[in-house]
């Protein structure tokens, strides 16, 4: 694998992992995930080509790759919204391979790219947060929002510094996309998830709001030492944040930088990797055409 050790360190480092050097049980073990789309038709696409991914508890992994590389497909396989055709997924010791999406939700917190996708616009801020507070729990005929929970939500929202702690009974539809994405982040971490999945969660926001949300993400992740996978198209973001950087290409993990290697990485290096991967693409296409 390519070792970029000759490159200069240009970005601030994340605090080191607590468990470095200590043998740990992996939080996430995804083994030979394979995912086809439109299998058996002329449109057949191999979106994941045997992906193996081991993530340690508390590790923050950035995932990059060109469009169609399989980033979102990989996340879909882990979250269960589009389960893989082959492969095994173990999360926190539970074999979740055959768990449906809603059952996996008890272990996984998620934030989507679309800032409107993570909240219910017709419901109030407190109702949305109460829904998140019951993630993975049986929902019965107890009250949907209680007074003690409101107190918790106020404390949680005051972290955002947006004044939302005074607007609990307001409809979420009245808020901006950036505010809604911040609330979604809080909601995803309200109950500590075993795994936090962030699918380009700042890509649809303006630069300033994106930065605010990224800062909030870091605070939340560090505070609870959350195991996190984050997809991003922003190279600088991928370099600056997290303990590890992986690059997907054509459904495979082609690069895997640990914290040390990542420190020396620059945006230019990453772009070079993209270009060399793209030229591999044309080679592999001709190989496939020749060899069938």
């Amino acid at each position, binding site marked *: 694998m390519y070792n970029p050790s000759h490159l200069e360190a240009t970005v601030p480092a994340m605090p080191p992992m607590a468990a470095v050097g200590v043998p740990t049980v992996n939080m996430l073990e995804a083994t030979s995930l394979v995912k086809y789309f439109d299998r058996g038709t002329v449109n057949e696409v191999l979106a994941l080509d045997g992906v193996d991914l081991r993530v340690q508890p508390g590790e923050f992994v950035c995932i990059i790759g060109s469009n169609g590389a399989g980033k979102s497909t990989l996340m879909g396989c882990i979250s269960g919204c589009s389960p893989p055709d082959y492969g095994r997924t173990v999360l926190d010791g539970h074999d979740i391979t055959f768990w*449906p999406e809603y059952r996996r939700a008890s272990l996984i917190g998620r934030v*989507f790219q679309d800032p409107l996708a993570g*909240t*219910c*616009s017709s*419901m109030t801020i407190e109702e949305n947060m109460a829904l998140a507070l019951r993630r993975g729990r049986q*929902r*019965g005929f107890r009250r949907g929002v209680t007074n003690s929970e409101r107190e918790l939500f106020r404390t949680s929202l005051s972290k955002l510094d947006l004044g939302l702690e005074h607007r609990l009974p307001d409809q979420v539809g009245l808020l901006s996309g950036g505010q809604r994405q911040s609330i979604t982040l809080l909601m995803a971490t309200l109950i500590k998830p075993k795994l936090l999945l962030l699918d380009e969660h700042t890509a649809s926001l303006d630069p300033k709001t994106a930065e605010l949300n990224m800062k909030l993400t870091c605070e939340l992740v560090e505070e609870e030492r959350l195991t996190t996978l984050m997809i991003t198209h922003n190279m600088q973001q991928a370099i600056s944040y997290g303990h590890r950087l992986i690059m997907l290409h054509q459904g495979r993990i082609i690069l895997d930088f640990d914290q040390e290697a990542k420190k020396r990485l620059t945006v230019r290096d990453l772009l070079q990797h993209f270009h060399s991967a793209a030229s591999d693409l044309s080679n592999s296409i001709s190989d496939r055409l020749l060899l069938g």
Partner: protein
Amino acid sequence: MSFFAITGAIEQGLVYGLMTLGVFITFRVLDFPDLTVDGSLPLGAAVSSVCITNGLDPWLSLLPAMVAGFLAGMVTGLLTTRLKILHLLASILTMTALYSVNIMVMGGRPNVPLINSPTVFGPARKLVASLGVSPWLTSSFLFLFLVLAVVAALIWLMRTEFGQALLATGDNPRMITSLGVNTGFTIVVGVGLSNSLVSLCGALVAQNQGTAEVSMGVGTIVAGLASIVVGETLFGGRRIVTRIVSVVVGSILYRLAIATALSLNVFKPSNLNLVTASIVVAALSLPRLKAFIRNRGYRQKRNV
């Protein structure tokens, strides 16, 4: 318009208010346009009537009617969530099948007369009379009591954890799935609940008019939608309490409007469904129409 026509319209508005609450659960809460109701209304009527003619207490007969409605709704829900049939089509399929089922329930006949059978209004009439109210208003009072009970129950339900999950299922299924709710389950239960209310309405209507008919469900969904949009247009609240209450008020106002138009000979009774459908089209297109007019004014100003 006579006093009897007005009280009659209010009585209809109250009893069909139960149906409208059912349609509200699917159409507004779950965002699931459900046409099963055209079949589950006569289903409730048929089940209740057959139970009564076989000697069951009229009050108790409402229970199997509601259970039957729940099952009919479940079928539509399962066709949608398990077999991935489009919700609208799934409900049309169930509605069509229910036509045969309803005739089967009624022993192969298209109607069951209840003229000489006991109904829920018998014991209620004595109670209302003891309060010094004209026995003519018995069914109105009974329906008012039942509608208030169902409204209270629905308001309570929508504030529970399960009710919140129902609301979220209609608003953002992807989000609520990622928070651990099986939307397949909430949809099946929600559509079932909706149709059990519609069947309850059908059972009461049959007992009130003294007969269950296979054709009594025609136009149920359109009347339900019209009542909902009438209520929403007049109240337009966002809180769930306001929305639920406005549904019932909308149902009463809708029946009053129809009765008024009929008494003034504005249109013939056979034109009712055409008029109602037109009301729904007008009400549903109102927001777009408003926006269009607003934008047109803006453009004209810019052109000056």
